[in-house]
């Protein structure tokens, strides 16, 4: 795959279709891949990489990159294309300046999960498709890829590219049977006190590094309310430990109806807070209250939360469900 992508990137750069390429390059460690912009074939040959650790959703980078002169080639995995479409809907990406190459994805691995299996001192990782051979300073270990997938990939919602200019490989299908709402359902079945305790515990780990916000394609504001002293919200989230928890709640409200469930928030959280569950709760509620809706499936039109129809549920539904 990496070879075909490099070949395509060089071709499109060469024939002038695009001026720049956004992809991934190796970081300090084998699993420490980072998004990067390439401007010529030499840079691509030197650094371009695509492997099981390229989890980053490159759509968000296009907000800034698409405003620059010239056209940019971007490689998007199926779930990244949903974010791309949603950003197009919100007029945040200049579509003319982007050339999308859809790439297939069989799930991305999580270095965190590998480490949780007691494997430390990693010096290198290689893959034979189904298994990883992990070189460590203590010797080599083998783990099955299926055991160390990102949570979002274990419940993958779609392998279909909703937008692209060109595809590498075959397009996949939407996975109608994803079990991504199982954990939300479990939380819903808790008592209010249990649920409160669960979230207090999780959110108390937050160190307010803002990584979740910065990586989130839905958090694309020019100026975030939490950075704006006039919003009346910024200091709200810093007064007490309880109000600090509100940072995540407010963020979930801000992305409600727009979150495509790309799962980047949980991937980047250094404290391993399952932030995606907040967003999934909203998605599940929207599906149940307003009919099935997948943000980013379309690049235009209205979202359930910005539309009024006569069939919409009454506001009292919130109370009824909350009291359950």
């Amino acid at each position, binding site marked *: 795959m990496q070879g075909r992508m490099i070949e395509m990137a060089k071709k499109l750069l060469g024939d002038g279709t695009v001026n720049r390429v956004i992809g991934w390059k190796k970081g300090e460690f084998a699993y420490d891949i980072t998004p990067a912009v390439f401007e010529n074939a030499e840079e691509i040959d030197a650094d371009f990489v695509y492997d099981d650790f390229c989890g980053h959703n490159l759509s968000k980078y296009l907000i800034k990159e698409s405003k620059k002169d010239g056209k940019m080639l971007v490689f998007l995995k199926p779930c990244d294309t949903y974010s791309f479409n949603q950003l197009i809907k*919100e007029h945040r990406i200049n579509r003319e300046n982007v050339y999308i190459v859809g790439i297939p994805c069989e799930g991305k691995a999580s270095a965190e999960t590998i480490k949780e299996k007691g494997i430390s001192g990693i010096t290198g990782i290689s893959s034979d498709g189904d298994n990883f051979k992990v070189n460590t300073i203590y010797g080599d270990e083998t783990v099955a890829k299926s055991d160390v997938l990102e949570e979002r990939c274990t419940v993958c919602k779609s392998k279909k590219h909703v937008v692209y200019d060109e595809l590498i490989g075959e397009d996949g299908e939407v996975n109608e049977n994803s079990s991504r709402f199982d954990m939300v359902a479990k939380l819903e079945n808790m008592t209010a006190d249990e649920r409160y305790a669960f979230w207090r515990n999780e959110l108390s780990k937050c160190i307010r590094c803002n990584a979740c916000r910065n990586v989130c394609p839905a958090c694309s504001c020019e100026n975030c309310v939490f950075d704006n002293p006039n919003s*009346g919200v910024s200091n709200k989230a810093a007064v007490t430990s309880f109000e600090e928890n509100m940072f995540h709640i407010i963020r979930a409200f801000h992305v409600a109806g727009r979150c495509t469930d790309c799962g980047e928030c949980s991937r980047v959280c250094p404290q391993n807070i399952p932030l995606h569950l907040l967003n999934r709760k909203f998605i599940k509620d929207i599906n149940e209250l307003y009919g099935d809706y997948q943000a980013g499936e379309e690049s235009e039109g209205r979202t359930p939360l910005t539309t009024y129809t006569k069939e919409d549920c009454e506001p009292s539904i919130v109370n009824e469900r909350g009291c359950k």
Partner: protein
Amino acid sequence: MQRIGVFVCHCGTNIAGTVDVKAVAEALKNEQGVVFSTEYQYMCSEAGQSIIKNAIKEHKLTGVVVCSCSPRMHEATFRKTASSAGLNPYMVEIANIREQCSWIHKDMEKATEKAIILGRAAIAKVHLNAPLTAGESPVVKRALVIGGGIAGIQTALDIADAGFEVDIVEKKPTIGGKMTQLDKTFPTLDCAACILTPKMVDCAQNEKIKIYSYSEVESVSGFVGNFSVKIRKKARYVDETKCTGCGLCTEKCPMKKVPNEFNLGMNNRSAIYIPFAQAVPKIATIDPDHCNMLKNGKCGVCAKICTAGAINYKQEDEIVEEKYGAIIAATGYNPINLDKYDEFAYSQSKDVITSLEFERLTNAAGPTSGKLLRPSDGVHPHTIVFVQCVGSRCGAEDSKGGKSYCSKICCMYTAKHAMLTREKYPDTDVYVFYIDVRTPGKNFDEFYRRAAEEYGVHYIKGMVGKVMPQADGKLLVQGSDLIAGEQLKINADLVVLAAAIEPDKSARPLATMLTASMDTNDFFTEAHPKLRPVESPTAGIFLSGACQGPKDIPETVSQASAAAAKAIGLLCKDKLTCNPCVAHSDEMMCNGCSQCEKVCPYGAISYEDKEFRMPNRTTAIRRVAKVNPAVCQGCGACTVTCPSGAMDLNGFSNRQIMAEVDAICR
């Protein structure tokens, strides 16, 4: 720091009966910024207002909090009071301690505590209030009436009479609407055409009135006093300026087998047609679905015969754009489709007809020249059964497209049909099946009783269960007589169904264009069902006739004149004062995501690409939201939708609301 005065109203015992008003005034005295606090029996009274005025002057107040009834009741009153004492009216806040406190609580202690908290919230808000000044917008002195039935005609005539220009847009080739199809009108039995056609002619001859016939509203933008409307003039393939209405073309047109909609398909017309003799404007129209010349280029008879040279097969739709200060919706009604009412055999038998079809059968200009003959065989019917409430007053579980409401006009027109039938053809037996007979208009009940008592119409309380066409051409009507408690079987020659009426299909898309609200039945909703019955909640949009609800002619005409009066009131003004509590966007914060534009029910938000100065002498072009303050009604939907907080509402800013919440939670 604000200097705030707090004024607690007793509202007689309305508030003081449940809330310890003295304790409220006392407690709020200690709030930050409060320099004066008092209570009085009736704050809205002359004396109460003087207390406020004096306090503003004496204590140099910069903000006022009145703890009283709902702001809907007296906010305007107290704003005026403050204004007359030299304070900006928007520095007044109301704490509603009546509707939201004293009226709904019984426990004095708890109600008092809540009143204090509500007062505290209002004080916290006033701290962040800023003086606001209302802007002005000009008024285009021209009105648009959409729909040219009797409602639209009356509204247009009244507006023109007041000296304003008014345009009528009518989708059919002629104005006149449903009333042109009626024979006589209840309760006075004067002929519909005789009273309507002079009004149609008045419209055509009035210098102030312009008729866009065979035209539809394409789009509406703008706001009260300043609407911009695109009107599509559909191609009629006849030059309106040349056609004299001589009608020669309609006689010579070889395509004569087109169902005539004016007679509800009961006879035919030609492909080029004038709907009826008194049509206004009297101009021929070519039906492109049936004209051979337009379909396959083989004919051209009308062009050859027309001495005026008015025929133009190449004519295309034309879009006209006009500006209006006020728009009046008068889109009218239609009988519902009865295809699903199999029990009445409407689609099986030609002799089961709707009341409107009956109206055509008795009209001198109708398919039978006014002779009451059965559609199937042209024989005079001797037994006629009228069935009331077909599709009206249906339960919620009705699956045939029936309506829950009463169509209001059927009882009276059926009494008219029955009476006229008995008068003209005394040898005819007339039965009317009814649920209730509703005749509350002026001289209406007398009319109905005359039909039943003097004209011998058989009124039977009960519904018809089934109509069965028989081999001999008769219709076997099975019904129940609830008063006699027996099942009836009547061998009828003709069955007339009083079909429910529903708003015209064009009303729904029109409402969307006008951002006017509708009820679940697609009738336009009024701004207030009792006190503002001819205005839409959307400023500058008025409602005339049956588009607002089922109405007979007298009621339609009076409402049409009322709508005209309201429109004239608006057009008389040179400038409109705008509500200063409108939204505005902070361009530096705006992402241009368009969510506010989508939720705005008034179409007040648009986007523009704006150049911004960026660091290092660079510039960037960003898409940002722009609010038209004249259109914005201050509902605040955009402010809660905006993820970045760029949208804010004057007088209800995000910070003010947050301060209120904080004050309540303190």
